[in-house]
């Protein structure tokens, strides 16, 4: 992992390391079991394709949102945490998709010790499926 960021020297435009995700049926099982979510579009392939008309099992929207928070927190390390976070599911993601998280520092407020981070999940076609924004709050040194 790269060096822990420092609010004193952080600049807008800084890229935040992303990560590749290849969700599989085991992860969809674990995730929906952890929620108690029985929505068939996440585990019942015949239903999802034949009845609901999707091309494949659907990756749950809140899981994609979680991946954006991981992008920020892995970059922050022990330098701070999230003050706020928002995202929207703009385009569905499917089992078999190769997804990437990535982020970029949009602005830095050194007085408040906060940085606004623009985030997105991108699919293998280069389409942004899940845009988001986080406010990272840096701990007092």
């Amino acid at each position, binding site marked *: 992992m790269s060096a822990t960021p420092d609010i004193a020297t952080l600049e807008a435009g800084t890229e935040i390391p992303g990560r590749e*995700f290849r969700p599989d049926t085991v*992860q969809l099982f*674990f*995730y929906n*079991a*952890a*929620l*108690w*979510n*029985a*929505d*068939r*579009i996440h585990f*019942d392939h015949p*239903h999802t394709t034949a*009845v*609901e008309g999707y091309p494949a099992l659907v990756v749950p*929207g*809140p*899981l994609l*949102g*979680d*991946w954006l*928070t*991981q992008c920020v*927190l*892995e970059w922050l390390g022990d330098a701070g*945490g*999230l*003050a*706020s*976070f*928002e*995202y*929207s*599911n703009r385009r*569905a993601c499917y089992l078999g998709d190769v997804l990437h998280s990535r982020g970029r520092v949009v602005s830095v407020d050194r007085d408040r010790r906060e940085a606004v981070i623009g985030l997105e999940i991108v699919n293998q076609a280069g389409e942004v499926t899940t845009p988001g924004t986080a406010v990272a709050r840096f701990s007092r040194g």
Partner: protein
Amino acid sequence: MGASLDPELLARIGSTSGPQTEIVTRRDIRKYAIATGQRLSRFLDGEEAPPTFHVALFWPVVPMDQLAPDGVALDPMFPRVPGKRPMAGGLKIEYHRPIRPGDVLTSTRTLTNIYEKQGSSGSLVFIEVVMRIVDASGEMVLTEKTTRIYR
């Protein structure tokens, strides 16, 4: 004007659900951390909950015979909108403090807004529900606003 925004639907604004109280366990945090593919040890070890853990903690525990045929639990806070199909929307969360094992958390949800916008392929209806989570001493833990879009 939107024919779908009938007075009966708009009368739902201000309705609440809860309070719902849940106990946070290390085991549930660890399961959620693994399921979401966390890599930070504080989450994998269950010392602290990942920032979206409350989504699982307060997901309604619904008996099988109360699920719709598609497996979905009907959420009374998100009423059906006549002639519209719900799409996944988004969340906005404000954090006050991390969630840890042993926390006893209480959530209350309020339907705060229903409104309509004209999209390129017809009208879209937006329903906003705010969930407030407090700890056993009444201190704010987080606030989450869910916006669901109906097309």
